[in-house]
C-alpha cells in the first residue's frame, strides 16, 4: 500500500515536472543580429534567428564577426559584441506587479545593458556574474567586458 502510494506520488511528480518543462515560458526574444550567433540549449547548438524565443538556461554565443540584441519580457535589453558568451542562468518575472529576479552569467566578451522592470521595481533583484565579480544593477544603462583566457 505504502509502495503503491509512493509510486503514485512519484508518477504525479514526474508528470508535473514534464508539464513544467514543456511549458517553459519564453523570457526574451532575439531582436537584432549580425554575423554568426549560436544559441546553446539543452546540449544542442542552434543558429540564432531574428524573432527566436529565448528560455532560462540558454547560452548565447557570438562568433568573431557576431553581434546580438535581445529584449527580455521585463523590457531589459542586452546587446553583445563579438566573441561573447552569456548564460541566461535565472529569470523570473511577474508582469502583474513587475517584480522578478534575474541572474546572467557573463563568461566572455562585451555586453551593453539597459535594465527594465525587474531592476526598477526591486533594487538588487538583477545581477550579472562574471568569472571574478558580481555586478548588482540599480539601473539603467551600463556595460561589462570580460576578458578571455590569456
Amino acid at each position, binding site marked *: 500500500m505504502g509502495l503503491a502510494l509512493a509510486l503514485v506520488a512519484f508518477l504525479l511528480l514526474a508528470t508535473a515536472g514534464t508539464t513544467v518543462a514543456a511549458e517553459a515560458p519564453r523570457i526574451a*526574444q*532575439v*531582436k*537584432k543580429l*549580425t554575423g554568426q550567433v549560436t544559441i546553446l540549449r539543452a546540449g544542442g547548438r542552434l543558429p540564432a534567428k*531574428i*524573432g527566436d524565443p529565448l528560455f532560462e538556461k540558454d547560452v548565447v554565443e557570438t562568433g568573431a564577426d557576431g*553581434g*546580438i*540584441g*535581445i*529584449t527580455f*519580457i521585463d*523590457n531589459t*535589453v542586452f*546587446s*553583445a*559584441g*563579438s566573441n*561573447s558568451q552569456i548564460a541566461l542562468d535565472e529569470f523570473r518575472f511577474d*508582469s502583474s506587479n513587475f517584480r522578478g529576479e534575474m541572474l546572467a552569467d*557573463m563568461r566572455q566578451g*562585451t*555586453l*551593453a545593458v*539597459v*535594465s*527594465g522592470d525587474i531592476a526598477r521595481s526591486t533594487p538588487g533583484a538583477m545581477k550579472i556574474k*562574471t*568569472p*571574478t*565579480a*558580481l*555586478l*548588482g*544593477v*540599480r*539601473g*539603467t*544603462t*551600463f*556595460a*561589462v*567586458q*570580460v*576578458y578571455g583566457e*590569456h
Partner: protein
Amino acid sequence: MMRRATLALVSIVLLAGCPRQALFVVLPNAEGGGGAITVEEGETLTTLDQPYATAESRAGSSAPIAETPETIRVIFRGAIAAQPILPRHFRLYFILGSDELTPESKIAYRAVFDDIKQRPVYEIEAIGYTDTLGDLPYNQALSLARAAAIRGGLVRDGLDRDAIAIAGRGKHDLLVPTADQTPEPRNRRVEITVR
C-alpha cells in the same frame, strides 16, 4: 621604512603583472543621465553612479579606474551597435463608458503603429483600465474591451495578432487616484508596451 617601500613596490609590480579580468562601466542613457551599478569582488564593493564611471577587476579585487569616453566607446562599439530598438511605452485614452479612443488618442495611435512598424520583430502588451464609475464586473469587462479594441485596430492595420497580448485591470491601478464612482478621463486608458 626602506623595507615598506620595497614591499609597496613589489605589490605594485605584482598587480601590474596580473591581467585585467573584467571592466565595468556606467553608460549615459537616453535622458542624459546614467545608471548605477555595484561591483562586488572578494572584500571589495565598488559603486559606480556617474556616466562613464569605470571599474576594473584585477587580482581578486575591483577598483575604480579612469577611462576616457572614447576608449569606452571603442571597447563597446560592437555591443552598442548590436542594441535593438529599445522598448517603448504609450498611453491612449478613451471616451467615457466606451471602448472608443478620444479624438486626440486616435491621432496618437498612429505614433504607436509607426513605432511598431519600424521594428523587424515585435511584441506588444496592451492593458486596459477604467475610471471608478460603475461596479467592478462592468469595469473589468470595459477595461478588457478597451485593450481588445487596441488589438483589433492593430490587427486591422496588418499587425500579427499572436504578437499582441491583452489584459484588463478594471478600476484597479488608477493612474490618478480618486474616490469610488468618480469620472476621471486620465484613468480611462490603455497602457501599451512595444518591444
